[in-house]
């Protein structure tokens, strides 16, 4: 007799199945491949060509590097929101969850699988943009970057992606037309980008007190990354407010990620696996 009451595939196996499914979906989606690779690189090149005044030649490489990081995160933001919200909305709109509810699947495994796939795609977008900046002459001085800086860059990147995906779930609930989701996601990310002064690296373009760029997750993560990479003494261009490279700001970013992930679990459990048609 093989009928134990709650037999199911191990949680990690379920999460892996969801990750693989999303990677397979994304591989075929030409629009998302463009959003992941072409979109941030295009914005990086446009910014360098149109919006940046010719700086001191000694500083040009650093300006390009800072913009590479900014648009790397911008690309990761765009693609994680577009992918995550789009795929989740499509699954809700279709009948996939009717089927999934009939299988012993953990909602958190579903969510984790999506998070991993989204973060992997965001990482591709981020790295491609950085590489494009390097090819364009950006100066990163890798020999100066120690393990602590790498850890800060990696952690802020992952937290940033998790925050973006959790917010995207809310977007998917509000926008019930999955076919419009990519467009809406791009618009939302662009708005967030500009309203926070290019994700917080140009707070001077904000008319009122720009202190909020140290508290909103997209600008906070970007400013932390640039401050960690360049050092707090070398980021006058994005101050005031102060460069947010302290434990308090790190804790704030972690808090965003934890809080929004908990909300995402709630959304997944209630709306996807909650049992109603």
């Amino acid at each position, binding site marked *: 007799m093989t*009928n134990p009451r709650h037999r*199911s*595939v191990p949680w990690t196996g379920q999460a892996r199945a969801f990750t693989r499914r999303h990677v397979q979906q994304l591989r075929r989606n030409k629009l998302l491949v463009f959003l992941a690779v072409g979109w941030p690189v295009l914005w990086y090149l446009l910014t360098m060509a149109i919006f940046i005044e010719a700086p001191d030649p000694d500083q040009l490489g650093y300006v390009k590097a800072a913009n590479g990081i900014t648009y790397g995160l911008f690309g990761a933001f765009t693609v994680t929101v577009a992918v995550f919200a789009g795929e989740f909305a499509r699954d809700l709109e279709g009948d996939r969850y*009717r089927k999934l509810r009939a299988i012993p699947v953990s909602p958190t495994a579903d969510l984790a699988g999506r998070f991993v796939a989204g973060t992997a795609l965001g990482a591709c977008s981020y790295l491609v943009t950085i590489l494009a900046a390097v090819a364009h002459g950006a100066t990163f001085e890798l020999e100066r970057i120690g393990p602590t800086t790498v850890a800060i860059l990696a952690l802020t990147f992952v937290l940033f992606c998790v925050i973006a995906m959790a917010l995207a779930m809310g977007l998917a609930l509000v926008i019930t037309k999955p076919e419009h989701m990519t467009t809406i996601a791009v618009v939302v990310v662009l708005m967030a980008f500009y309203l926070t002064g290019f994700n917080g690296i140009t707070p001077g373009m904000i008319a009122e007190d720009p202190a909020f760029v140290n508290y909103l997750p997209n600008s906070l993560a970007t400013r932390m990354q640039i401050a960690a990479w360049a050092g707090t003494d070398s980021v006058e261009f994005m101050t005031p407010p102060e460069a947010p490279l302290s434990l308090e700001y790190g804790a704030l970013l972690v808090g965003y990620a934890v809080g929004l992930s908990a909300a995402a679990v709630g959304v997944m459990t209630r709306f996807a696996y909650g049992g109603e*048609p």
Partner: protein
Amino acid sequence: MPTDTTNAERTDGVQQPLLEARDVEKGFDDGAVLEGLDLTVEKGELVTLMGPNGVGKSVFLSCLAGSTAPERGEIELFGDRSPTEARSATSVMLQGETIDPDLTGRENLQFYGDLHPRATDDWRALVDRLELTPDLDRPAREYSGGMRRKLELAIALTVDADLYLLDEPTAELDLAMIQIVHDLLLEYREAGKTILVTSHAPLDAQIADRIAFVRDGRTVTTGAPTTLLEALPPVVRIRGAMAPESLFLGDRVFQRGDEIRGFLASETDLTAIENAVEGAREGATVDPDPPSYTDLFNYYTYVQSARGDATRGVGSSVAEATDSAGIAAEPSDPEEAEHR
């Protein structure tokens, strides 16, 4: 072929129904769909749940699968488990877009197979029999409706489950493929599996050990196909002419090819129909004809309800039909159901 692993016996050796649903109710914003549906399925049975579109068959199957929660009533699977608790022992094919259009057929099989604890490697043989192998590496969005049904069926049957809940598995399939699907289901039943199939295609009645008809969110009758056929009122076939519908049960006749078919009311003599048809057209014929599964479907879907609405009420018409045939309408009392 999956193995027989179910044991739905009580410790005292008495066989329990593998599936028992009592008085299940479920509604949505636009009204009630299930209005006290009862169904019992024994271990090893192949039961076809029949009824026209929109009577709640799919919603009921979703309730059995643990995908939708009923508002009232009880569902017990494998003796004492709720649908959610029984998910590891059931495999479900639901209508709709359950397959992912952005994945290939093979990737869909892999995805759902990776999630079910009792998935097997039998999918290769299954997709071969369902003639899907050449298309497995195409994105599912390019599949026709029939191909999607076959893929969904392969996903469900790949699981070595004890209970299969299949929502209209033959919809959109051609006749040759329907035969293949019937053969597959009969093989699974021979292997000891329990299968509940929903359908509005009379063809699916022929493989059933038992048919349950659903109308207005309730089970109106259940029985073996031959028993239900024998219980039908006499069927009259008219060729070459038309007779007044009022002469037939439920005031309805049904077109099938070049003939008209209807059910003879006990108080109506065949001669009365012959007289009505006579002279209408030269060469017209009126004959009694053995009932078909289509007649069975038409009777329980259209005629019985019309009789009930027009004359005596649905309950009494069921009683009359069942009394005359020695078959039982689905009782609301579960004990009565067990004795049936």
